């Protein structure tokens, strides 16, 4: 069953690659013209087209692109001629670092808040947690980011710009990326927390919860041991969705904090009409989405005894 899911995921990624390629095909404009500017002679244009392989039929170009991508070779950037894999490499690492950093704050916080909110349903704590999470998610990301900059960077506690180079130590990275990570945490916590709370509360009316209460178990034990294991599937799925967002949707936050991640690269590539880079980044984003959702499916299956242990 899990093998089937993986196969489906790969198939899906293949379809996405077709769509990405097809979509960039549809874009108007001539790349060679774009690169050489208005003053180019027809001869140089033709020569460049030949060199870039733009004269080949679409299926051939698609195949060349895909087979390259599979081996990690995304071709060269059209704007500066550097290999795309090199451009992406470091930035992908930065993006994943930031996503993991934010997730390591957001996931535990939202699980704990969600569980406590369910445990003390309709209490002051529940209302405060809900209101807080909803407020955080209701503001646009850049606004949250600037507020944090105002409070925490203007006062000199944390840097407002992230300057990372290969020699930066891990501790420094954690310190320097704290504000973007915190911004992202505030943005994604609400979903996960509210889903955790709702999934647990949804189960609190079930007969096995009543049974647990009638066995004299404490409320905390009932929630942790009897409700949470049965609420895992929706919680895992919303976490995966938010992790995917942390990798693919952080463009604005990266721009605000001048963070050298994939999102910035994508924005730059789009404004430069650097189609090859756009394609590569889009494919990576799609792969991250599919992989995380696949992981969520697999985890939901593993945590459900009814699926793991047949009759």
């Amino acid at each position, binding site marked *: 069953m899990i093998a089937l899911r993986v196969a489906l995921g790969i198939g899906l990624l293949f379809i996405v690659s077709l769509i990405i390629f097809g979509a960039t095909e549809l874009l108007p404009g001539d790349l060679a013209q774009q690169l050489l500017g208005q003053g180019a002679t027809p001869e140089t244009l033709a020569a460049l087209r030949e060199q870039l392989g733009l004269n080949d039929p679409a299926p051939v170009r698609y195949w060349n692109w895909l087979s390259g991508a599979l081996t990690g070779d995304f071709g060269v950037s059209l704007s500066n001629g550097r290999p795309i894999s090199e451009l992406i490499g470091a930035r992908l690492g930065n993006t994943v670092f930031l996503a993991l950093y934010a997730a390591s704050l957001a996931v535990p916080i939202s699980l704990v808040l969600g569980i406590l909110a369910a445990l003390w349903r309709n209490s002051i704590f529940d209302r405060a947690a809900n209101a807080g999470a909803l407020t955080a998610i209701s503001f646009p990301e850049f606004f949250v980011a600037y507020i944090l900059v105002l409070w925490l960077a203007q006062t000199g506690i944390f840097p407002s710009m992230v300057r990372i180079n290969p020699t930066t130590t891990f501790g420094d990275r954690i310190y320097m990326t704290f504000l973007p990570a915190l911004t992202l945490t505030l943005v994604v916590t609400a979903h996960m927390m509210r889903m955790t709370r709702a999934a647990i509360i949804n189960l609190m*009316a*079930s*007969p*096995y919860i*009543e*049974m*647990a*209460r*009638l*066995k*004299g*178990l*404490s409320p905390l*034990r009932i929630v942790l*041991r*009897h409700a949470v*294991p*049965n609420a895992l599937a929706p919680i895992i799925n919303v976490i995966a969705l938010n992790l995917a967002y942390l990798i693919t949707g952080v463009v604005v936050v990266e721009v605000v904090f001048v963070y050298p991640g994939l999102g910035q690269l994508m924005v730059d590539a789009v404004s430069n009409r650097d189609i090859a880079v756009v394609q590569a980044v889009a494919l990576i984003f799609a792969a991250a989405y599919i992989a995380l959702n696949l992981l969520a499916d697999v985890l939901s299956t593993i945590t459900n*005894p*009814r699926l793991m*242990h*047949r*009759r």
Partner: protein
Amino acid sequence: MDREVLLEIRGLRIEGRSGEEWTEIVKGIDLTLHKGEVLGLIGESGAGKSTVGLAAMGFARDGCRISGGSIVFDGIDLRTISEKQKRDLRGARIAYVAQSAAASFNPAHKLIDQYCEAPVVHHVMGREEAERDAIDLYRRMQLPDPESIGFRYPHQVSGGQLQRAMTAMAMSCRPDLIIFDEPTTALDVTTQIEVLAAIRDIVRQFDTAAIYITHDLAVVAQAADRIKVLLRGDEVEEAETRQMLDAPREDYTKSLWAVRTFARAEQPPASGTPIVSVRNVTAAYGTVNVLEDVSFDIHAGRTVAVVGESGSGKSTTARVITGLLPPKSGEVLFEGNALPAALRRRTREQLRQVQMIYQMADTALNPKLTLRELIGRPAQMYLGLKGRVLEERVKELLNLIELDPATYIDRLPGELSGGQKQRIGIARALAAEPKLIICDEVTSALDQIVQEGILKLLNRLQEEFGLAYMFITHDLATVRAIADEVVVMQQGRVVEQGTKAEMFAPPHEPYTELLLSSVPEMDPDWLTRLLERRGAA
């Protein structure tokens, strides 16, 4: 009985909330239970049986509150102690066995983990000792493979076994009192006996006091020393079991005793082309055959009861007839002509002729639609009724099922009682003006008095419209009341079929005999005698 008093409830009042209003649902109940004694608590649903049972643990469900009276368990007033103190009693000294073990076991944990939880949390014994104890109790409850059954998940164990495992779990801390809340209601007759016997034996072995809640008198008569009858939150009467069975004092109690008096008149043998003919049907889910060579006929104006335990293929047969499950071989004839096997290849007219009524009216009715829409939809879809004609038809149907259109037509299913919902199920089936209605356990979830009302209604409609019924049930009393012909199924095969008179008169097939002898009788010694007879055989 002059043993020490264990539980004393005085003037118990419980309120339930509907919207903003609190209404009294238990109106001053007194109850005394001695150590080691079993008290049967009986009544229809809504009588407050479960509510009283839970109150004996100092527990009120969400939306309920204990508003008056005292509940004294072994000298401790459960109404004045703290939640923590109550938790210390629950599971340890007072345990609970729920109606549906399948729903009350946590699907995420193995049985033995759930068994060990209470003893470990209440510091009665350590985990390892509790595991050994679980295996011992599983053995005493006569569960198969007591050594290993605890290491399975609830979904891997059958309903009857789960119910026994739950009783074992309730025993884990050797409580002084167990509340059994309809522990056998959801089980087949044959399984019910085994569970009932196991419960009775273990309660005696450990000299545990029990409150046994049920709506089935014959069942409670086997287990209880005394019986208390409740009606709408009030006590009707209480007496020793034998005395209660022999000489009930109150009219209401007598009516409970006499509830199964309805029986459909004998019909002449059916002739002509059957409405539906099931011919040599073999069907499978995946590669496993669940029906093997099933054949029977249903004639106009006749009721064919299909009986058997769960898993015997009754509902699957219905799925084949309705086209939900195309058979592997064999066919279904409608008035002599073969119906297409698959649902989507049947014409609307063919679909209209066969309608279904389901066991759980709760889940079979869309909770967001009013009765007007629920009943009107089939009339609109199959018969093209519109506007005023449709409105009149819906009203006519509501009158047929004895619900006043003026009051009910714009209500939602959630605003109806269980019996009323089932009536809506009937009206919806009737709206299509079918020739055959398949009734799948339509009375199983209802109280006996309500059941009788539904059966009478179905019978009246049959006489009025010449309907054919296929009546799926595991309850032989229902069969006796309404069937013309009976088909007995076991493991996907028809083991016996014939007219009702033939089926209820010996000689029987062994399986039919088993089913028939498993129906509890109003005699406190019935179970003992039956077990002796079976033990001797």
